């Protein structure tokens, strides 16, 4: 078998597009090629990356989470209020959130409900809770999170260190660990996992709980960067996280996901926004232009998929 396996080829597209964008940004604004520059460029990527990993864990079991944005917003509100004033209650609420995600997984599996419907409904629940907690923007980030997010490790900026760390941890859990194999197996062929004597309910609950954990981390790190929270702070995350997973080589169904790819995809999306500002494209056009970048990258992916499909049909 050659070095260039199907999986590695899949990762090549997101990595190349990230490199290309980074090169373009460096060319347009050489001052970004520094410790501070890189940190500023990728700072906001940390919560997006975590949310993307959370979405990836849901997509791994053939589901989709449309409540990611409101959930992260809600977690941000809890972090800026309870976690700051009463850390114990704050942590209890966050632990409850993770349990709620696990319960969602169980309900979706047992009642055979479409995850899109359930999570769409939940997005209103989370959104409502967030508004109840913080009707107007406010709150303050707990000092330790603030310290963590503004820390300056030697040589490499925090944002890069964090992204690599997230990628490594997620890769280990999903791709290398023994339980990760079963979780991906549920996405690939639920019946065969069941026939081998595994509990698919338990597997799905675990996948959802892990997703809840990463989404909670996303909300906490977001507040660490912004210092205060707002009930609508992370609404964009729902679509950004899905785009990040797909950009990074994941598929909507079939349990084909790549944690490293998802992190690279999230970084690419963050960088695309910066790239467009450096091009002095007016904010009115930026979202459209971001979409255009997405379409180009996905078209590349599609071309590669076709090649792969032709390779299989021997």
């Amino acid at each position: 078998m050659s070095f260039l396996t199907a999986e590695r080829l899949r990762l090549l597209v997101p990595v190349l597009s990230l490199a290309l964008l980074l090169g373009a940004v460096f060319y347009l604004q050489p001052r970004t090629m520094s410790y501070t520059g890189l940190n500023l460029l990728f700072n906001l990527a940390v919560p997006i990356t975590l949310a993307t990993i959370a979405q990836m864990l849901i997509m791994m079991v053939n589901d989709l989470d449309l409540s990611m944005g409101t959930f992260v917003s809600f977690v941000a509100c809890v972090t800026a209020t309870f976690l700051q004033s009463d850390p114990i209650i704050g942590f209890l609420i966050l632990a409850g959130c993770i349990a709620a995600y696990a319960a969602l997984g169980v309900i979706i599996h047992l009642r055979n409900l479409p995850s899109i419907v359930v999570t769409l409904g939940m997005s209103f629940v989370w959104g409502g809770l967030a508004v109840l907690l913080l009707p107007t923007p406010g709150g303050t980030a707990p000092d330790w999170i603030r310290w963590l997010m503004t820390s300056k490790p030697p040589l490499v900026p925090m944002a890069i260190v964090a992204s690599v760390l997230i990628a490594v941890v997620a890769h280990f859990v999903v791709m290398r660990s023994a339980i990760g194999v079963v979780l991906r197996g549920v996405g690939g062929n639920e019946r065969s996992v069941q026939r081998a004597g595994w509990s698919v309910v338990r597997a799905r609950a675990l996948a959802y709980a892990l997703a809840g954990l990463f989404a909670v981390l996303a909300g906490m790190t977001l507040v660490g960067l912004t210092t205060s929270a707002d009930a609508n702070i992370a609404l964009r995350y729902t679509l950004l996280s899905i785009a990040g997973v797909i950009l990074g080589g994941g598929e909507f169904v079939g349990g084909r996901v790549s944690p490293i790819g998802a992190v690279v995809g999230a970084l690419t999306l963050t960088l695309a926004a910066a790239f467009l500002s450096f091009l002095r494209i007016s904010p009115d056009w930026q979202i459209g232009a971001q979409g255009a970048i997405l379409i180009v990258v996905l078209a590349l992916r599609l071309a590669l998929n076709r090649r792969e499909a032709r390779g299989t049909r021997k």
Partner: protein
Amino acid sequence: MEATAPLADVLAVNGAEKSFGAVRALAGVDFFVRPGECVGLVGHNGAGKSTLVNIITGGARPDAGKVLVDGRDETASYGIATARANGLRCVFQELSLCPNLTVTENARITHRSISGFGWRVRAEALIRQKLDEVFPGHGIDSRAMIATLSIAERQMVEIATAFSESDRKVRLVVLDEPTSSLDASLARQLLAYVRKFVASGGSVVIISHILGEILSTADRVVVMKDGRVVADRSAADFTVDSLVAAMGSVVRARDAALAAHDYTGVRPVLKRSSQGAIDFVAYPGEIVGLAGLGGHGQTDMLVSLYLAEGGDWISRKDGKVAFVAGDRHVDGNLPLWSILKNLTLTVLPDLTRMGLVHTGEEANVAKKWRDRIEVRTQNLDNPILSLSGGNQQKVLFARALATRAPVVLMDDPMRGVDIGTKQEVYAILRSEAAKGRTFVWYSTEMEEVCQCDRVYVFREGTIVAELRGADTTEENILSASFSERAA
């Protein structure tokens, strides 16, 4: 194990019964497997083989009867977990690996005990060693993702996974059509391994449509028909011919043996070449049967006939073909719509005036067809699901018959339909055919196939026989469906 004491059966099923709705899949089956024995299981479609396998592997519970493991009655708690705990494995006919995982990772799914640090190394060693043992020189990379392997390679991986052992000894392996995608030399390797496994005390149940394979590999052959075991003898007592005879039944002789029509000079309405020696043709007013074991290319033929006549983009107002789907829950019903709307779906272009549906005419068409095929309902506006399965299927028939299409393709539409409805539908088909309509009918039921004027028998994706008139007998169909190829 000492051979002196009489050995208990590894697994036995006593008096198993199982029904799915109106269909009785198993009608009291006794089946057992002794240690160190290879049992061949044969039977035509719907004989109950799959249901029996499902009960053995714990995937389904019998409605009545007992499941015994090593002579212990385990009926109450028998399920997938119990079956696996007793060293029972199954290679299913359809692929049951996770295509998104590697060979090694799939081995890990099967072996719960391979876990913790270094699991990957252990799982890889396990599966590679078994692959080398069963299929020497296989050339499969255990780190390759299943989706990138060919069908034959996937089947090899699946078989090796089933035979591989970690914490528990594998005692009984059920192989459901294991050689269907293996070439002759790989099939020989597998069967040789089966004999070796059996010689070392293991047990195997093998299901195959290649009778030569069964006769050369199995010690004992069990023949099933209509949910019962009709023969259970040593393999040495059977020949290919006597096996075929045992599978057949005394299907009621047809009321009048249909004379073979002479179609020379008549223009066929449909024509299609298959890869085999025999090409498909259908003439006006004919009922053409597609027979053979399930999944041997009949549905593909129907779909290709349909697609060849209709475009993907533009629907034609005067389509040449109409389609009656087999699995009505998946391909047929619009479950939220009324009976009326389900029925008139195909004729909507005829009922449309300036882009709007003429509801009065729609109701007339629906009423006409309700009366003709006797759909038992007071109100056509009731939801389709309020009807019994047989009546739902009638509505789907009406949907196809209401069109002006001269050809109707039917994909085993009578699955799970009660006998009374079947008789009614047969009569409708006959009368429509007499008016010049052509029917292409794939059926898994022998009785239905014998209703046809002409029958094509499929095996492994191609037409292997064409039977007409008095030749359309169960015996001829059976012997064409089962290959005699010796392993």
